[in-house]
């Protein structure tokens, strides 16, 4: 499952996509994020699934555009170099912006 967490507003589209098919719930992304955006737990969008999965925590979903600014200076950042993206061994995390 491709879980798109985030939002679109007048300023643009801001989504962190986590591929639950790729995610092995290792949890390496959790400490990698300086702002505590990610967590690992039960897959709430697939009640029949037994394995855990990484997700964007509820209170961050509506403001990742701002929270993620820490890792995204307005010039000179690259998406592949984001700490959460780099920490994921299975390349399950993608940022849309």
């Amino acid at each position, binding site marked *: 499952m491709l879980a798109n967490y985030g939002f679109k507003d007048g*300023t643009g589209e801001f989504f962190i996509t986590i591929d639950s098919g790729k995610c092995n719930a290792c949890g390496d992304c959790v400490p990698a994020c300086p702002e505590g955006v990610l967590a690992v737990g039960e897959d709430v969008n697939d009640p029949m699934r037994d394995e855990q999965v990484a997700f964007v925590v509820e*209170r961050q979903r509506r403001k990742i555009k701002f929270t993620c600014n820490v890792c995204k*200076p*307005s010039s000179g950042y690259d998406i592949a170099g984001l700490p959460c993206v780099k920490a994921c061994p299975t390349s399950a995390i993608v940022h849309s912006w």
Partner: protein
Amino acid sequence: MITAGIDAGAKTIKAVILRDGELVGRSMVPAGFDTREAAERAYNQALADSGLAREEVKALIATGAGRKEISFASDTVTEVGADARGVAGLFPSARTVIDVGAEEGRAIRMDESGKVLDFAVNEKCAAGAGAFTEAMARALEVPLEELGEFSLKSTKAVPMNAQCTVFAESEVVTLVHAKTPKADIARAVHDAIADRVTSTVRRVGITEDVALIGGLARNVGFVRSLEEDLKLKLLIPSDPEFTGAFGAALIALDTKRV
């Protein structure tokens, strides 16, 4: 040398007249629905304020969202350029500029000469600008100009979850019904917008000194929340909403001096 600057913002139009870089006249009028007409009025009032005639102005530069509509200007500059030049003229030590107006917010990093090194803009969403405080003041039934002062009476921080102005309005109404002190809610409103502004400033990097301009700089509640968030003291001009127009007029002077 007489130069002029007009800043056509979303809600108000500001005009300033400078003599050799010193402010000699200014005016602010509501933008209304006819930008050109309002700009004309602001300009004439600023001229009257300075006691100078239109013919004496050597250059007039327009800035702001409605700058293209000011056909009587000799040239235009972006808000980012005007803000940076204006702040450099007022506070030579400033390296970061935060401008929060009625409908947009921006953060600018510049060098010692006022040259823009980097900037980030937050527009097209009311939650990052003065429109947010305006809507919240309405929901709280507190006059907008008193909202800042009012929030200073807060004794307790209450969290606000909504990130959208429309949802935040409902949240404020719910908090009021739950008998949350209005001053605490007002503080939560300023904390929320300060949080968003701080994140935008982080994108350009925070280099001291930091100046705050734009209409929201008049709101002492917002200033307090922003200073707490950034953990520093902000430089604020006495007439923060005129900084863009002032910068445009300084650029007009610069071009004539070359």
